[in-house]
């Protein structure tokens, strides 16, 4: 390590030292604004035949697995799925919780890191926020699929009607619906606000239908001082406001389970446990998206560098450790409670026919992240982080699968115990995954994936100063 050598007093050429800083840190490797704009526009406009091939395949998969299969299920009834008594909720709810979890990291990265002024966030806030919106769309699909009579789902909304029939606000599902709607609207606005300057940039650099598209979306942004002041205020308000919303959403999702009188579900620690679980899978997903964007899109190696993977890897390690704590807490308290049904359930988790899933969950969520992410060199490797992120996501999906259909198997009426076997919902789950990727691919060609103004702002704030022989990074407050 060059900076270590320097600290140890080894003579070092200053020129190459600065070069090293530049290479490593995006914020210290400034480029003219025009050049960066060009690079981002170029990445947006360059589409290879491979892109269209994958895009077409995904579109076909969405049409078949999501819409056709869902249509079949609506016509036939939920009998074509694997839900039964006692596992009334199956993979639908697993996917709902999973997608809401994915959507969490987007806001976590952009809002919390923005509030705490973590500088490394700058190039990938947009990529993360997109995940929030698209993930929530899939969560919505999953929860509506699961309803027996989805064509009447508007009854869950408090729509004034002649008969004065309102939704039941005692039901955690009503809280859920309101929380998710709030989060979807809030996070979409929060995605849109920092996008305005980039849309204006794109508007000034394109023609044809794209020009019209960006013109409408950019809301006539010209970049005057007054506009920036308003935009900054709005972004600040949203960054602070969305954080409690984010925490509340997954807490409320956990209450769907924790409020029920079921062994294994009525656990008071479920709120924070689910929030941490959501961040765990969400961070894994962010890292996967970043690795793919960096690997497949043009000019992205400049914006997304190993330093970013390194920083996210550190966060992932901390979150994995917190998740381990909450898992242990949940397990220990339930076991110590001594309820005979809970005891049966815990035994069923580990030693039942799906016990392999329980052990795989611990391996993917705890053992592998802890084993890999402690090492700075390892966590700077995009492909390795992609793998770890993938395993964490599989592990977190397993965790939800264990909490929902596997735990539902054990209830207080042993006569009804019956294992859940997934049916059509496997297709529907694949459909939501394909739809998520499809939306993301479409977005990567329609909106600037890198917030250029944010990167430039960071680069202007950072500079290298020399104190004697030491080169020091300084950050100034611009706002």
């Amino acid at each position, binding site marked *: 390590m060059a900076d270590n050598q320097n600290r140890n007093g080894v003579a070092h050429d200053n020129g190459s030292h600065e070069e090293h800083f530049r290479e490593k840190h995006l914020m210290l490797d400034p480029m003219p604004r025009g050049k960066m704009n060009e690079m981002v526009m170029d990445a947006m406009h360059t589409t290879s035949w491979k892109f269209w091939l994958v895009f077409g395949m995904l579109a076909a998969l969405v049409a078949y697995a999501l819409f056709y299969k869902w249509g079949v299920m609506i016509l036939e009834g*939920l009998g074509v799925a694997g839900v039964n*008594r*006692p596992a*009334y*909720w199956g993979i639908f709810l697993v996917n709902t919780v999973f997608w809401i979890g994915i959507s969490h990291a987007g806001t976590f990265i952009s809002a919390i890191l923005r509030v705490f002024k973590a500088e490394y966030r700058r190039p990938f806030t947009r990529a993360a926020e997109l995940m929030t919106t698209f993930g929530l769309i899939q969560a919505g699909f999953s929860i509506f699929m699961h*309803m*027996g009579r989805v064509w009447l789902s508007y009854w*869950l909304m408090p729509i004034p009607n002649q008969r004065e029939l309102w939704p039941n606000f005692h039901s*955690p599902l009503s809280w859920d619906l309101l929380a998710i709607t709030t989060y979807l609207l809030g996070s979409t606005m929060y995605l849109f606000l920092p996008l305005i300057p980039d849309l204006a940039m794109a508007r000034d650099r394109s023609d044809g239908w794209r020009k019209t598209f960006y013109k409408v979306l950019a809301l006539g942004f010209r970049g005057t001082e007054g506009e920036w002041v308003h935009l900054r205020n709005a972004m600040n308000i949203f960054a602070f406001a969305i954080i409690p919303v984010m925490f509340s959403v997954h807490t409320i999702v956990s209450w769907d389970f924790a409020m029920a009188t079921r062994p294994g579900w009525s656990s008071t620690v479920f709120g924070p446990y689910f929030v941490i679980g959501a961040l765990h899978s969400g961070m894994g997903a962010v890292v996967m998206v970043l690795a793919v964007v960096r690997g497949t899109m043009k000019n992205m190696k400049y914006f997304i560098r190993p330093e970013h993977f390194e920083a996210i890897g550190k966060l992932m390690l901390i979150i994995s450790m917190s998740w381990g704590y909450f898992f242990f807490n949940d397990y220990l308290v339930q076991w110590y409670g001594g309820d005979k049904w809970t005891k049966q359930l815990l035994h069923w988790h580990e030693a039942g026919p799906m016990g392999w899933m329980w052990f795989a969950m611990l391996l993917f969520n705890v053992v592998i992240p802890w084993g890999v992410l402690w090492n700075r060199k390892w966590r700077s490797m995009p492909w390795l982080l992609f793998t770890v992120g993938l395993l964490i996501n599989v592990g977190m999906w397993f965790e939800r699968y264990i909490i929902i259909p596997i735990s539902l198997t054990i209830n207080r009426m042993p006569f009804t115990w019956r294992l859940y076997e997934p049916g059509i919902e496997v297709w529907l789950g694949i459909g939501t995954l394909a739809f998520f990727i499809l939306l993301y691919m479409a977005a990567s060609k329609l909106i600037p994936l890198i917030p250029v103004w944010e990167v430039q702002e960071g680069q202007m704030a950072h500079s290298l100063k020399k104190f004697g022989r030491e080169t020091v990074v300084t950050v100034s407050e611009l706002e």
Partner: protein
Amino acid sequence: MTTELKIPEYKLAEEESGKWGMVVDTDLCTGCQACVAACAMENNIPYVGEEDAAYGRSMHWIRTERFWEGEYPEVRMTDYQPMLCQQCGHAPCEPVCPAFATVHSQSEKLNLQVYNRCVGTRYCANNCPYQVRSFNWRDYQDPRLRPEITILANQFNPDVTVRRRGVMEKCTFCIQRIHKAQDLAKSEGREVEDGEFTTACAQACPANAITFGRIDHPETLVSQLAHSSRGVHHLEELGTLPRVTYLKGG
């Protein structure tokens, strides 16, 4: 100087007594399943077919549970345990429905399921500790989709709704019979007498193991049986206030 504070009387759910109740004598039950058949005919409960029934989708509102005691070869069968909706006074299924399809009847003190309000989230069934709710996984009752039930469709009870796919249902304590008896009594200007009518399962039971009636009247047969020393309530520790009493160990 003292001021009399008038505090309105407030009753917790725990203090409210039920109106209709049932007693199941498990010492008398022979497990013949006549109640299951009678209930299905009275309440238009579909037969779901072999495959779905084996996969845990049978829709009986009352089922006869069998259990065994001990380890092989010292296995002994325990009593049969007919399980039906306990019509809880403090029912876990009620608060969780987001659409108000699972509500409590103020006048009859029963748990109601409003079929045409149900959107099928199945939360109530998850939260039912007795697992006695049945979900319409398919359109089991549509003769166009299932030609084999065309003849069965001719014996639907006209007093009871036929449910479609995606709707939750459960035992109603034969509320159509309750209403019929009440209407008759009202037209004759009297109260409903004990034993004047009963539920389909109680009517069909050859061993007279099931008794139904008013549990808020101390002189009725059902409330006397319910207060016998053999009476137990299932999962009473959850605070559900079940209105079905099981008699055991006679």
